[in-house]
C-alpha cells in the first residue's frame, strides 16, 4: 500500500471522527422569524460553551403544530429530547403521566442545583403539579400588557389608564376626540379571560383552578367578566374599542399603523414592536375594574415551557439538564429578555437587567415582569384544564359572535360554560 493513501485515509478519519463522543439532543420549538433566530443563537452559544453536548433546535410550526408533532413522535417512539409546549397545551402534557420527565427531577438526578424560589413569582407554579413540583421549564414567558402610542396620548392629553373605569370615562373619550380608535387587543381568551380572572383574583375552575384534581367545572360564566364583555360591546358601539377578528396580527396592525392608540398584547411583543413602529411607544400594566377588586393581583404567564420528554437515555437526559442549566443562567436569560421582550424567568436575570440599565433605556420592557411580580392571590398560580385548546376555540367563537352582535353576552357565556364543561368531562375519560 502506498504511504500516501495511508496518510490520506488517516487524515480523513481524523477530520470526520470527533476526538470524543458528543451527546446529541434535539429541541422542537415553535419560535418562528426573529424569535427563531434567537433560539438558534442560544443553541449555538450552548454548543460553543462546552464540548460534551450538542443541541439541535428544529422549528415545528405554530404552537399547536409543535405539540401535535411532538405527540405523534412520542407515540412512534421518535420524540425529541425537548419539546416546547404552550400554556394552553401544558395540561395535556402534564396530564399524561409518563410523557415528560419533571424538570425538577431531571435537574436533581443530574446534579444541577435547583431552587424554585430562584424563579420570579409569576412563573414558579404555572407549569408545576399540585405539590408544587416544577414539571416544565418555563421558557418564553410573557404576560399581557398594554402598549400605548405616546404621541396619541399626549395629543389627547391623557395618561395610560390604570383602571377600566378610567379608560371608560377619561382616556377613551379623549383619544376618540383626538381622532384615534382608543383600543384593540389581540387574544380574547388569554387577555380578557384567563388573565381577567387572575388580575381580579377570581376562581377560574373548580378544584383550585384544576391544580388539586382535574377541573370538572369552568367558572367562566361569572358576572364580573360578563360585565366586562358587555362593556366591550358598548365601547365598540361607541367607537371606543375595536375588534379586528380572532387573528393576533389583524388587531396589532392598526396599532402599528398608528390608527389605534392603545393595544393589549404580549410583553413578548416588545422586540417586534421596536423594529416595526416609527412612533414613540411605552407600556403599562393591564387595567382592572375597581368595581371588582381594590387589590389587583399578578397575571398568569403566557408563552410556553420546555418539557423533557420521557424515554431518553441517561446521557441524553444529562445533556438536557445541562442545557436547562445554561438556559436558566442569568446571562442567557438576560440575552433572551433583551432580544425578544419575553420576561427573564429568574430573579438573578432580572437583577442583572436592572443593574445593566436595561429598564432605564426601555422602561416598557420592565412592565411585564413588574406585573408578574405583583402580589399573588388564591387563584393567580395558573389554571389546568384538559382539552383547553378546544375550550379556547369555543371562547373565540362565542366572543366573535358577541362582538359582531350575533349573540348576546348572556347566551355566549352560557354556551362557553356548557361546551367547556362537556369538554372537561370528555377529557377526564381520556385519562381512564
Amino acid at each position, binding site marked *: 500500500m502506498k504511504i500516501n493513501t495511508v496518510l490520506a485515509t488517516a487524515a480523513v478519519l481524523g477530520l470526520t471522527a470527533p476526538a470524543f463522543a458528543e451527546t446529541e439532543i434535539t429541541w422542537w420549538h415553535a419560535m418562528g422569524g426573529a424569535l427563531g433566530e434567537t433560539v438558534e443563537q442560544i443553541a449555538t452559544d450552548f454548543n460553543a460553551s462546552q464540548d460534551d453536548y450538542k443541541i439541535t433546535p428544529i422549528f415545528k410550526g405554530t404552537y*399547536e403544530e409543535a405539540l401535535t408533532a411532538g405527540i405523534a413522535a412520542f407515540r412512534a417512539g421518535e420524540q425529541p429530547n425537548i419539546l416546547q409546549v404552550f400554556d394552553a*397545551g401544558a395540561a*395535556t402534557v402534564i396530564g399524561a403521566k409518563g410523557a415528560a420527565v419533571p424538570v425538577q427531577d431531571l435537574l436533581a438526578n443530574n446534579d444541577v442545583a435547583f431552587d424554585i424560589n430562584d424563579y420570579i413569582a409569576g412563573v414558579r407554579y404555572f407549569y408545576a403539579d399540585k405539590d408544587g413540583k416544577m414539571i416544565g421549564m418555563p421558557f418564553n414567558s410573557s404576560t399581557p400588557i398594554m402598549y400605548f402610542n405616546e404621541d396619541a396620548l399626549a395629543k389627547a392629553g391623557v395618561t395610560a389608564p390604570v383602571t377600566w373605569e378610567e379608560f371608560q370615562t377619561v382616556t377613551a373619550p379623549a383619544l376618540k376626540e383626538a381622532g384615534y380608535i382608543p383600543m384593540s387587543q389581540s387574544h380574547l381568551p388569554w387577555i380578557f379571560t384567563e388573565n381577567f380572572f387572575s388580575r381580579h383574583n377570581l376562581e377560574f375552575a373548580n378544584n383550585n383552578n384544576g391544580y388539586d384534581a382535574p377541573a370538572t367545572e369552568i367558572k367562566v360564566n361569572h358576572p364580573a367578566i360578563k360585565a366586562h364583555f358587555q362593556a366591550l360591546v358598548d365601547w365598540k358601539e361607541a367607537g371606543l374599542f375595536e375588534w*379586528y377578528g380572532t387573528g393576533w396580527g389583524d388587531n396589532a396592525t392598526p396599532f402599528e399603523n398608528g390608527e389605534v392608540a392603545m393595544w393589549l398584547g404580549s410583553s413578548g411583543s416588545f422586540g417586534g414592536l421596536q423594529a416595526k413602529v416609527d412612533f414613540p411607544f411605552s407600556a403599562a400594566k393591564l387595567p382592572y375594574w375597581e368595581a371588582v377588586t381594590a387589590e389587583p393581583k399578578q397575571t398568569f404567564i403566557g408563552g410556553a415551557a420546555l418539557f423533557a420528554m420521557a424515554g431518553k437515555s441517561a446521557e441524553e437526559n444529562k445533556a438536557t439538564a445541562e442545557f436547562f442549566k445554561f438556559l436558566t443562567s442569568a446571562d442567557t436569560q438576560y440575552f433572551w429578555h433583551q432580544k425578544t421582550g419575553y420576561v427573564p424567568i429568574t430573579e438573578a436575570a432580572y437583577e442583572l437587567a436592572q443593574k445593566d440599565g436595561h429598564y432605564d433605556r426601555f422602561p416598557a420592557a420592565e412592565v411585564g415582569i413588574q406585573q408578574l411580580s405583583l402580589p399573588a392571590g388564591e387563584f393567580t398560580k395558573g389554571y389546568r384544564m384538559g382539552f383547553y385548546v*378546544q375550550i379556547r376555540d369555543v371562547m373565540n367563537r362565542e366572543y366573535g359572535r358577541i362582538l359582531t352582535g350575533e349573540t348576546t353576552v348572556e347566551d355566549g357565556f352560557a354556551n362557553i360554560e356548557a361546551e367547556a364543561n362537556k369538554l372537561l368531562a370528555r377529557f377526564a375519560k381520556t385519562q381512564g
Partner: protein
Amino acid sequence: MKRAGFANPWLPILLLVPQLTIIAVFFYWPAAHAIQSSFFLQDPFGFGSTFVGLENYADLLGNKEYLKVAGFTVVFTLLVTFLSLGLALLLAVKADNVIRGAKTYRTLLMWVYAVAPPVAGFIGILMFDQSTGPLTAFFQSLGWDFKLGVVYSDTAFAMVTVSVWKQVPVNFIFFLSGLHSIPVAVREAALIDNRSASGRFWDVTFPLLAPTGFFLLITNITYALFDTFGVIDTLVKGEPGNNPMNLVYKVYVDGFRGNDLGGSSAQSVILMVLVLALTVFQFRLVERRIHYT
C-alpha cells in the same frame, strides 16, 4: 365467440397486488384505525383510554355547533360546485367561439390551475385584507363594510370566491376539450335545424357534454368538500374563531389542534359514510341518465 381470460387464476390477483397493497396501506388500514378510535376517548400520548361506545357520535350529532358546520359545508359545497361549473362552462363555450388569439385566451384562463390551494388562500388574504386589500377597498367604496375574519358571512363570501376562482380553470380545460370532441357534423346539422344559439346549446351541446359534466360534478364536489382545506386554513389563519369552516377543517381543528382523537375520528367516519353515500347516489341516479358516445 371465444371468451378472453387468464389461464392461471392467480395471475390477475398477482397483477392487482401492488394496487391493492397501496389501497390497503393508505386507505383500509387508516380507515379501520379511525373507526376503532371513534369508539374510544384516549389520552393523546396513548397512556390512557376509555371505551365509550357510540358516545363520540352522540356528542357530535347532539352538538348544534357541529350541525351548523355541517350545514355550512352543504351550502358551501353546493355554491362552489355550481359556480365553478357554471362559470367554467360559460367561459369554455365563449372561448370555443373565439378564433383569433384563441390560444392566448385559453392559456390565460388555465393559468390559475397551477396555483396550490394554500397559495390561492394567501392571494385571497392579500385581496381581502382588512386594511390593504384592494377588494376590501372596492366593496367599501360600494358601501359594503366588508371585514374578512370578523363577520361570518364576509369570511364565507371570501372562501367561496377564492375556492371558485381556483377551480374554474380546471373545469374550463375539461369543458373545452369536451366541446372539441363534439363532431363538427352534429354541430352543422344543429345549425340548420335551429337558429337560436342558446337553443342549440341546451338541445345539442349540453347533452353531449354530459359525460364530461358528470365527471366534473363528482370531482368538484370532492374538491369543495376536501381540497378547499388549504383555502379555508389560510383565510382563517389557523384560528377559526367565529368564522365558518367545513367538516374537514373541523376534523383538523379538533383532532390536530385540540388533540381530541376520539371525537375527530368519529367526525372522519361520519365524513367517510357521507362520501360513500354521495358516490353511490351519483352513480346510481345521475349516471343512468347520461349517454356515453
